């Protein structure tokens, strides 16, 4: 997706990563790890004048401090973009909420995503993975990003929501507009949000007369601590969040894991031969290739890791960068499949810990296990090109493999 010709104004190329960083720069998209190390060696918090002013913490300690400080850092804007559009109520609770509104909104969403709840989805997930693999295994090649890693979360979430799996293509289009085009193009973002709202309004209306046993009905029946049901706008906001947060991210994590295994034969063979390594391997792949970077808005002046931070700026809250901090993770740039101590922040830290983390772990585990069972030997297709998504969620969008 990131290789599409963009009609949008391009940012000037970055020549100074310490004082003028830009997470949409092609160099960052292609290989951000040396950039993050350079920034971290310079300062625990760096700043750019781009995006109307934005900080970035570069150490685990600074990322953790900001994630845990909801007094000085608001979640009301969770994307760093060229513009700062007006704040709307019920934007996407609870991800865009601060205390005290945050907790009840989050608690509503948690029960369907506990480890026990998501375990019930595992058989369907395994079937989805095998149905996808059946479609291309005899070809000896495939673009795994387009034909496998993308569809695992789309079909899983469609299954949870009680929506036809074929509507997954719509989900993917909206998410691309919001997360990638939307960084520089407000109208593309708004149009996608409008289309999602219209789609989910129709699904809600249908369930008002014909309730079903799915996540949409669960939200419609959920009660706030006051005993009041959610307004339709709250249900839609939550559904929008689940799609935005649940698809691109998991697609990216599974894709980056397969990319690693395609390019690191010793790890691939070890994991295929020793399935008992899977739990630590999944955590390590999550650490090394964490897909998700969040944002905060500075509300009050404060100091983070000795660095002054001023209101009026955004913060690019890069959990992936924290996860490459060698102070916390020895040999941080190396993937160690049996790393025992792994306090990684791939799902965020503090009150905004990803609601879907248990689901994502299950999807990653199942998708990689089923792939390795069917296709234990694979490599990048030298005639193809791997491309990575730009912006807030990083993962392969083209992943041509031979097997």
């Amino acid at each position, binding site marked *: 997706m990131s290789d599409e010709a963009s009609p949008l104004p391009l940012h000037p190329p970055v020549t100074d990563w310490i004082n003028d960083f830009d997470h949409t720069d092609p160099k960052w998209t292609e290989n951000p790890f040396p950039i993050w190390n350079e920034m971290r060696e310079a300062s625990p918090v760096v700043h750019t004048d781009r995006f109307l002013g934005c900080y970035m913490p570069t150490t685990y300690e600074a990322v953790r401090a900001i994630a845990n400080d909801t007094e000085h850092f608001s979640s009301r804007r969770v994307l760093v973009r060229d513009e700062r559009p007006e704040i709307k109520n019920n934007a996407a609770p609870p991800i865009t909420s601060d205390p005290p509104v945050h907790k009840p909104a989050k608690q509503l969403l*948690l029960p369907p995503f506990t*480890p026990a709840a998501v375990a019930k989805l595992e058989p369907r997930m395994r079937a989805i993975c095998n149905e996808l693999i059946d479609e291309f295994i005899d070809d000896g090649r495939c673009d795994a990003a387009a034909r496998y890693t993308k569809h695992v979360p789309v079909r899983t979430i469609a299954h949870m929501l009680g929506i036809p799996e074929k509507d997954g293509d719509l989900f993917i289009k909206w998410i691309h507009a919001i997360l990638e085009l939307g960084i520089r193009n407000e109208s593309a973002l708004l149009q996608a949000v409008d289309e999602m709202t219209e789609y989910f309004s129709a699904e809600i209306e249908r369930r008002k007369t014909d309730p079903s046993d799915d996540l949409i009905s669960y939200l419609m029946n959920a009660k706030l601590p006051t005993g009041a049901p959610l307004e339709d706008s709250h249900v839609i906001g939550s559904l929008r969040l689940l799609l935005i947060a649940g698809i691109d991210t998991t697609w990216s994590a599974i894709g980056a894991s397969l990319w690693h295994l395609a390019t690191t034969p010793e790890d691939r063979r070890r994991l295929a031969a020793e399935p008992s390594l899977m*739990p630590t391997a999944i955590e390590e792949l999550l650490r090394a290739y964490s897909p998700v970077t969040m944002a905060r808005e500075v509300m009050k002046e404060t100091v983070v890791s000795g660095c002054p931070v001023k209101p009026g700026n955004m913060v690019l809250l890069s959990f992936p960068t924290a996860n490459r901090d060698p102070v916390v993770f020895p040999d941080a740039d190396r993937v160690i499949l049996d790393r025992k101590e*792994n*306090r990684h922040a791939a799902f965020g*830290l503090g009150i905004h810990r990803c609601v879907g*983390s*248990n689901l994502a772990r299950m999807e990653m585990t199942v998708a990689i296990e089923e792939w390795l069972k069917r296709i234990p030997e694979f490599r990048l297709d030298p005639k193809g090109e791997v491309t990575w998504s730009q912006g807030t969620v990083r993962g392969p969008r083209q992943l041509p493999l031979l097997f």
Partner: protein
Amino acid sequence: MPVQLKVHVDPEKCQGHARCKALAPELFELDAYGNAHEAGDGRVPPGLEDKAYLARANCPEFAIEVTEE
């Protein structure tokens, strides 16, 4: 005498990452929201000491205490 260990989850710090439950299911339980607490009175049965320390070392919120009784 081997020392008796106890684990405790600080409910103010726990955010429901559920790493402790995955690594030491005998020592931790999750509530309906997926947040963790220690199983029973937190006493670590003999042989599970390493799991207690492993859970502590993998908690992203630094919410787990391991103490000697």
